[in-house]
């Protein structure tokens, strides 16, 4: 780099030229514990941006799950409640009913939402609680060391299915987001991803819509984010994104599954 380029860079890097800033709600003083390349970080960032843009920072309450995202309350600077494993929608129900002016969202992984918390999730959606459920599906139990999850694909190798998941032994992948549109309480159900800049932009728009539904008290919004777990899948972050696009999107196709706001 010659001197001329250095001077020009200094001219570009000025506050008035900033087009992308780190979201203020994301606490920069703590390092996120996620593995390098984990999709959770992107989802945290998008949620922080959406909350700040909607101006609901003062009265937003998150419910963090058990799983990799258990420390979400350390990273996003809004009010949080830590729920027991799988019970985030039940806690969110209470928070929303006791303080209806609050905007309540749950942040759940596949173990939390589609294994131990299936009943809570489905019943909260069926009751049409005015909450946002963010469901991060990476088809594996990342925190405990890469065991099979209900959402693990057929043939996918994990610590507990070393020869690949078998239908006769382990059953079929549970596509819980596909069940949600059938329930009358849900107003918006979508499945997105964050593997490319375009996908991340789209996911942000979906999250914004979901939070707007919660503010307008239209019912339950479910935003599934098909995510990677490169450590659990034993791949580089780059390869994990490619593997996800090739295999996960066949079983978990992206797009809106239900949107009642369009019909109105």
């Amino acid at each position: 780099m010659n001197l001329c380029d250095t001077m020009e860079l200094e001219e570009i890097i000025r506050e008035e030229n900033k087009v992308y800033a780190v979201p203020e709600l994301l606490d920069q003083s703590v390092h996120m514990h996620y593995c390098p390349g984990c999709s959770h970080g992107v989802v945290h960032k998008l949620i922080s941006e959406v909350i700040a843009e909607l101006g609901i920072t003062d009265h937003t309450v998150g419910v963090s799950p058990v799983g990799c995202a258990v420390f979400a309350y350390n990273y996003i600077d809004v009010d949080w409640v830590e729920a027991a494993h799988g019970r985030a929608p039940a806690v969110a129900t209470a928070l929303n009913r006791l303080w209806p002016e609050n905007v309540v969202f749950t942040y759940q992984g596949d173990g939390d939402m589609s294994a131990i918390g299936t009943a809570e999730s489905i019943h909260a959606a069926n009751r049409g609680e005015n909450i946002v459920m963010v469901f991060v599906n990476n088809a594996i139990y990342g925190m405990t060391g890469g065991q099979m999850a209900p959402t693990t694909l057929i043939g996918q190798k994990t610590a507990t299915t070393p020869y690949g998941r078998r239908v006769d032994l382990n059953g079929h992948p549970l596509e819980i987001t596909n069940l949600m549109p059938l329930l009358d309480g849900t107003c918006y159900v979508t499945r997105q991803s964050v593997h490319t800049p375009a996908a991340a932009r789209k996911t942000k728009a979906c999250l914004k819509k979901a939070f707007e539904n919660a503010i307008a008290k239209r019912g339950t919004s479910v935003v599934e984010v098909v995510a990677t777990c490169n450590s659990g899948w034993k791949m580089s972050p780059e390869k994990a994104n490619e593997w996800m696009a090739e295999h996960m999107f066949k079983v978990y196709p992206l797009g809106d599954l239900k949107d009642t706001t369009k019909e109105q």
Partner: protein
Amino acid sequence: MIKVRGAVTVNTDRCKGCNLCVVACPTGTLALQRSEVNDRGYHFAYMANPENCTGCCSCAWVCPDACIEVYRVKTEA
């Protein structure tokens, strides 16, 4: 002709060297620092070819650790 010049700043302390920004960058601006590591031992990202940057924000959107901030200027060339 209007020329767009961009630049990014990387919070090297937070960067975990996941390489996703390098993959997402359409102009080949970013690369991982091969010869240096940060306090936690990660090869952090940096602008290897700063003259290529157009400030498109692709790197910032996919960065899982929110380390990247983007700047853009339009100049009459």
